[in-house]
């Protein structure tokens, strides 16, 4: 049993795929004509595929974003022309849940950063399930500042449940590490392009997502808190996560409507992992195009544009119902 509902659903497909293959084999070996049975099964297969994945609820997207086979940051970074990883926060240790370093994307030198979860238990333990410690955010801060000095655009991949909530993270001032990372991205004098490739969990995700252009995969999620965390906070009951997911407006469509996400990249039916190669190619193409559009902006223009972008976010309503904007 997997606790991922998408993985569970895929089991029923695996069984059908096996039966279709068996029937095909049997059909080839025997004189009996089973083409109608095969066609029926295949039709059923397509039908189930659409039923399972044609439209996904917010809760289903949460599981899609967490799918163990979903492409992770390193799946994207490994398809750069070059990547030279840089390590450590220069104070305490290297945090493997954030990877970063120099890279070349389609002939353009960049600084690349991403939260990195593991595919299996062993790697997940090493990478703390993609939940960065303060050391990770301090590394990101260091590299973001270096990028500004060397005039390298910053490319990030966001994929984390959230920043690590642990004893050592508190002792090493997780709040400060994230707060200063947010500042480093805010003040970076080079273009920043962020892509939400999996789960975007709270401030721990935002620390790598302040950007001039934000891309989001169709089934990725990006939320103020994980649905489990939200349910625990509001109703002291993490099992009401599905209900929280429905409220939180955490899908790519919702976030584009709010102006938080600039571009949504479609995924194959059934999710990015069903055709990871194409998804990565398409994503890197979109990142490259965004960098090309931002390349002509001066540092002053970038800072000004970025300030105005975040300044606008968060409309409110006055006592009545008319939306009001601030008088500056």
């Amino acid at each position: 049993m997997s606790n991922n509902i998408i993985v569970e659903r895929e089991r029923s497909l695996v069984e059908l795929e096996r039966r279709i293959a068996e029937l095909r084999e049997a059909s080839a070996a025997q004189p009996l004509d089973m083409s109608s049975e095969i066609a029926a099964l295949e039709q059923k297969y397509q039908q189930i595929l659409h039923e399972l994945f044609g439209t996904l609820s917010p809760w289903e997207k949460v599981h899609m974003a967490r799918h163990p086979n979903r492409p992770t940051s390193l799946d994207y970074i490994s398809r750069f022309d070059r990547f030279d990883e840089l390590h450590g926060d220069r104070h305490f240790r290297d945090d493997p849940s954030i990877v970063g370093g120099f890279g070349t994307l389609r002939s353009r030198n960049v600084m690349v950063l991403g939260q990195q979860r593991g595919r299996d238990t062993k790697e997940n333990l090493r990478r703390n399930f993609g939940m960065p410690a303060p050391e990770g955010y301090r590394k990101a801060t260091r590299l973001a500042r270096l990028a500004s000095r060397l005039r390298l655009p910053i490319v990030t991949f966001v994929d984390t449940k959230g920043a690590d909530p642990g004893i050592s993270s508190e002792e090493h001032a997780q709040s400060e590490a994230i707060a200063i990372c947010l500042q480093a991205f805010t003040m970076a004098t080079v273009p920043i392009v962020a892509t939400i490739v999996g789960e975007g969990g709270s401030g721990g995700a935002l620390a790598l997502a302040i950007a001039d252009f934000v891309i989001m995969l169709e089934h990725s999620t990006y939320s103020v808190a994980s649905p489990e965390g939200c349910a625990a906070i509001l109703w002291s009951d993490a099992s009401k996560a599905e209900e929280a997911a429905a409220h939180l407006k955490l899908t790519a469509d919702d976030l584009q409507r709010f102006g938080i996400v600039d571009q949504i990249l479609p995924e194959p039916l059934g999710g990015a992992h069903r055709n990871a190669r194409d998804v990565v190619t398409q994503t890197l193409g979109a990142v490259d195009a965004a960098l090309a559009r931002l390349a002509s902006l001066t540092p002053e223009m970038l800072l000004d544009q970025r300030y105005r972008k975040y300044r606008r976010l968060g409309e409110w309503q006055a006592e009545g119902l008319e939306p009001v904007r601030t008088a500056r």
Partner: protein
Amino acid sequence: MPRPDWLPARRTKENHVSDEALWSKCPKCGEVLYRRDLAANLFVCTRCGYHFRMRAYDRIASIADGEFTELGADVLPGDPLDWSDRKSYPAKLKTDRERSGLSESVVCGFASVGGHRVGLGVMDFHFRGGTMGQVTGERITLLFEAARRERIPCVIFAASGGARMEEGMLALMQLAKTTAAVSRFMADGNFYLVVLTDPTSGGVSASFAFQADVIVAESKAMIGFAGRRVIEQTIRQRLPDQFQTAEFLLEKGAIDMVVERSDLKDTLVRLLEYADHE
């Protein structure tokens, strides 16, 4: 502490509704305290020194010299996510408004502190647990923008459970918005001082609170990124009582000083003098 004349009268009236109780029991030592004595002692238990969570306008009265011009009071919350669980979000806001006498979780404005004109922002845990919604972020941002134009220091009293769930990602984006305003303010050479009060956590501690030049914390305040309960559930063990207290953070090097409430105003005035270029 009697509420001074210079604070808006309607606040005093609103406050009366919730503050009418004559007696308060100290949650730490159990002492029953006459409300007026407690107020006169800056809401610190006269027996054991426990610091009660202060209301925003009481705090302003305890820090400002005698004038406070509120900023952004007309910026009021909406319901961007159409959130409704057992109760609709606007209904929750209405209840909190009535209980706290506040229109949002932060009160911002201009004040004089020991003769120094400052931008002053005070968060109040009694309104939605001090959570940061769009209006919280907007008021903080307006304050830093105005203080930057005036080239005066900013003093923020933080008290927050983090970003507000019912405003979803628009609440999270306030971390980015306030960070942008604080960063510009600081880059221009202005002084930013924060006082962390009980409790400060989540999206507020991980954004403008810990970006300050000088970080002061009230004695015994609980301060952290993750909530205590979350950490205990994650590591499946009980945390020591000292964990995440102001004193703990001082020892770990995360903050500059721990101050008793009775010394707070004098401390702030002394610190502000170092940034006074006039």
